[in-house]
């Protein structure tokens, strides 16, 4: 086993702003350190994001993978300062192009939103305003940052619509969202997000709500736009198989924390943590003939209000031993640039529970 290096992630200690994250470099566009987001609800404090750290280099793609409710969207909205109430960023740093987004005033934040960071949301059916034409909504994205005249903005928006592959974009400019299919609406969303050629594009499950046939098209579009504009991308998904050939690095989220983090090859071929193994088994792998049935991870994601003691994954883990419910494993570097939060990472014991037949 590789030498274990203490990584500056998780744990009780305060932010170690000076320590480098595994993929952080002078090139890093975005560095998130020990981000904590809580929702104060009537039922208790929901720890939706509980101390995550990661970095994204210019032009590269970070995939964030995890089950529903693991905090992917909340984490992404925090980057833009758009955590919905009653959510609050409790602590952490979000350094984008050298500035801490959490310390910017509203005016400065707005200059970054939609301009230097674009965002595509999960559900294209509800993410466009039903009472404005798609053209008007794309124009608005251009106008707000460039102060173009209405006519020029219209011209630019039409161009953007054809860039994202809307056929007859000039004629369809004045159509309303309900006149478009799901895939086309997601293209419109993408047109708005890339309107200002942002340095970073955050795509939050951009294909989850779409037909399987359309999913690949949308991912291809994102990939080619990324090439063209040299954008960095955070690609959120619950299906690593879908995005494996686009991602450079992968962060696996579970119950608000990152439980494994590494290059796409490491995560894909050499997963260390049983949860990642489970994720891999539960998705169809493109590069392998299907060997046997897809196995979903058994059990339910844990409550984010009352997290299980020890490792949050232990109640669902086939390998769990006593130490797993007594001590919370830290996210440690086991290999060069390959981190995992597991007491038995790289050294898994015999599974205790047999897989269901």
């Amino acid at each position, binding site marked *: 086993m590789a030498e274990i290096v203490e990584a500056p992630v998780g744990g009780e200690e305060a932010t170690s702003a000076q320590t480098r994250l595994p993929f952080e470099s002078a090139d890093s566009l975005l560095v998130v350190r020990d981000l904590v987001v809580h929702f104060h609800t009537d039922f208790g404090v929901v720890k939706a994001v509980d101390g995550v750290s990661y970095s994204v280099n210019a032009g590269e793609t970070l995939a964030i993978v995890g089950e529903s409710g693991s905090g992917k969207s909340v984490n992404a909205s925090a980057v833009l300062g758009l955590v919905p109430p009653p959510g609050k960023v409790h602590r952490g740093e979000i350094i984008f192009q050298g500035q801490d987004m959490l310390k910017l005033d509203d005016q400065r934040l*707005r200059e970054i939103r*939609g301009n230097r960071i*674009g965002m595509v949301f999960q559900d294209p059916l*509800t993410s*466009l305003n*039903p*009472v404005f034409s798609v053209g008007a909504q794309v124009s608005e994205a251009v106008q*707000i940052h460039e102060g173009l005249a209405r006519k020029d903005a219209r011209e630019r928006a039409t161009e953007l619509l054809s860039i994202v592959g809307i056929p007859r974009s000039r004629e369809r400019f004045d159509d*309303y969202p*309900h006149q478009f299919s799901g895939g086309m609406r997601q293209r419109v969303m993408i047109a708005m997000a890339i309107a200002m050629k942002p340095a970073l594009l955050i795509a939050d499950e951009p294909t989850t709500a779409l037909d399987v046939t359309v999913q690949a098209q949308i991912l291809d579009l994102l990939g080619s736009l990324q090439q063209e504009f040299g954008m960095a991308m955070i690609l959120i998904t619950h299906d690593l198989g879908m995005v494996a050939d686009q991602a450079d690095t992968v962060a696996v989220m579970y119950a608000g924390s990152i439980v494994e983090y590494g290059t796409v090859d490491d995560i894909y071929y050499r997963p260390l943590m049983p949860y990642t193994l489970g994720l891999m088994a539960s998705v169809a792998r493109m590069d392998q003939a299907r060997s046997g049935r897809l196995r979903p991870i058994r059990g339910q994601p844990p409550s984010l209000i009352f997290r299980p003691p020890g490792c949050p994954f232990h109640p669902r883990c086939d390998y769990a031993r006593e130490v797993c419910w007594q001590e919370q494993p830290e996210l440690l570097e086991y290999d060069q640039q390959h981190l995992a939060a597991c007491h038995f990472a790289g050294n898994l014991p015999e599974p205790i529970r047999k897989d269901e037949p």
Partner: protein
Amino acid sequence: MIPVVFGATLILFVMLFALGNPIDSIGGERNLDRSVRQTIIDKYHLDDSLPKQYISYMGNLAKGDLGESILQRRPVKRILGDGMPWSLKLALTAIAIETFFGIVAGVISAVRRYSFLDVFTTIGTSVLVAIPVFWLGLMLQLLFGVFLRNTFIHLPVSGVDAGWRSFILPALTLASVFTAITARLTRTTMLEVMRQDYIRTAAAKGLPERTIVYKHALRNAMIPVITNIGLDFGSLIGGAILTETVFSWPGIGRELALAVLRKDNPIVIGGTIILIMAFLLVNLLVDISYGFLDPRIRYD
């Protein structure tokens, strides 16, 4: 529209028939002379059977004839025609008050949720919804007509002789409940809309708060609110009966209320038909205007 008018007149006929012969109220306390009585009964066909009266009334109605008032000896059409402009003006003023104050209060409440203004609006609207319209009218009359009569803010409490100042109290009274309902509906809808995904999209574009609220959110919230105000217009015409009576407003509502008390059936029926038609017409207009507000149901 036609079937509704048919049905409504039929119901009215049956009810009025059950209330008995209007002939007795004509003479007031005195007993009418036998021959006079018979003349009137013959003239208005008061002894005919119900179906016969109904058919002859509908025949006249088809010709645009609403008959003649038994007490006023004037055509019902003329009487209602005189009252119509006053009722319309009052209703429109009330609608204007409802639209403006209802929406402004609702939006402020939603945007500054749990602020003093929001709490104030919530309490105020609860009170307005709870108190009866005629009582509010009487209290306003007492306040502005009696207690403040020697000050410069005293206001006329009856009739229409004082120009626009005459409108203030009746219109406020008439608008009160509707304004409260509109304010609440606006608040709820705005809060609902502000939670929508497209609002988050607007924020992610970098739009300032006020563009998000007053362009993206308000435009959506207005769909149910405007629809509701349109429908209120129909109820306002009905609500005018109380308000017009309290403020001696020379509109259709007061005419109708008086006619009911005096059993002047031709006015009761004619007035009701006019109110029903106005109500239906407004609903039709609201349906058509839907398309302008909401592109999802634009007919093209």
